[in-house]
């Protein structure tokens, strides 16, 4: 049975926002409305609103742990899709009171983490290729995740002495690694650390059983071992 469509007024009531806000979100890609063929009115599916209000962290985490089904709105199969959605996020964030100093840093940090997933795993994805990418401009969160090889496996090719996920994550965020041929990559996570160290941005990052926390305006790395061993990488940026 086809799902009943909600009018923009009904959707506004459910989400507790104004009609103008929904129109703006439709325009900037934050919550895209449906239009009937040839029509101009905006409609919404209840399931899309549920997703919109859902917990980004849980959806991403479930995907990395058990390869649960990923809603298309959060899935970037390749880096071209990711770049497009990154620009949409940039446009969406512009209307939410971010300072002109913080905005480019959030986009660049998300870009480096997401592109790392593609650069490190291209042609080597163990199962699902691509990444999870979601953002919430109200909660001020950006979530990225992949089911790739993870930091230890990829960095271990050029740093064979690395044995644990915690060692690998520490090196990835602190040491400039040169001579990574044939892989042209690296050093994006050092950028992430420098941004967090001097700005109102924080990061939670997980790869394997290593969990790293970078706190805003703080140069210190907090790395711990988790009970859970996850696939690929998971990142939560808060600002």
């Amino acid at each position, binding site marked *: 049975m086809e799902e009943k469509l909600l009018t923009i007024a009904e959707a506004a009531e459910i989400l507790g926002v104004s009609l103008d806000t929904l129109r703006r979100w439709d325009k900037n890609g934050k919550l895209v409305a449906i239009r009937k063929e040839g029509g101009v009115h905006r409609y919404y599916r209840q399931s899309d609103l549920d997703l919109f209000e859902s917990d980004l962290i849980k959806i991403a985490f479930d995907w990395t742990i058990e390869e649960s089904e990923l809603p298309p709105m959060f899935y970037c199969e390749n880096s071209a899709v990711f770049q497009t959605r*990154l620009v949409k996020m940039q446009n969406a964030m512009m209307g939410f009171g971010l300072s002109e100093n913080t905005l*480019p840093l959030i986009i*660049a940090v998300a*870009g480096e983490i997401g*592109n790392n997933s593609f650069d490190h795993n291209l042609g080597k994805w163990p199962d699902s290729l691509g990444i999870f990418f979601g953002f919430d401009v109200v909660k001020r969160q950006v979530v990225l995740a992949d089911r790739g090889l993870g930091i230890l496996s990829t960095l271990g090719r050029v740093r064979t002495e690395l044995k644990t996920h915690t060692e690998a994550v520490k090196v990835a965020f602190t040491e400039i690694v040169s001579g990574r041929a044939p892989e042209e990559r690296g050093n994006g996570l050092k*950028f992430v650390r420098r941004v967090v160290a001097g700005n109102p941005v924080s990061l939670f990052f997980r790869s394997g059983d290593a969990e790293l926390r970078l706190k805003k305006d703080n140069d210190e790395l907090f790395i711990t071992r988790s009970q859970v061993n996850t696939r690929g990488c998971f990142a939560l940026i808060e600002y």
Partner: protein
Amino acid sequence: MRIELKKFGTTLISRQSGKEAFSAFQSSMSLIKQDEMVEVDFDGVITFSPSWGDEFLTPMLDKFGDRLVLFPTNNPSVKITVKLLEDINKRLFRIKA
């Protein structure tokens, strides 16, 4: 020659697009005289990242050395990226006074 990076886009993020930009710019390189300065202008760029910068600015620095000059900017994503690229390459960029 002055290169306005905004002509490559306002969100300069990935290695792939950095490579494409450098490749596109190579056709203009023959127009640069041997003693001519090459100036890079970040005006209009919203977001800049090390991946893009490493694919564009690093080969530019290799090719032009001290003839490559970066325009100063207040954009923090540019400033942190340029400093990181200097640390990676162990070479400083010239910044226009």
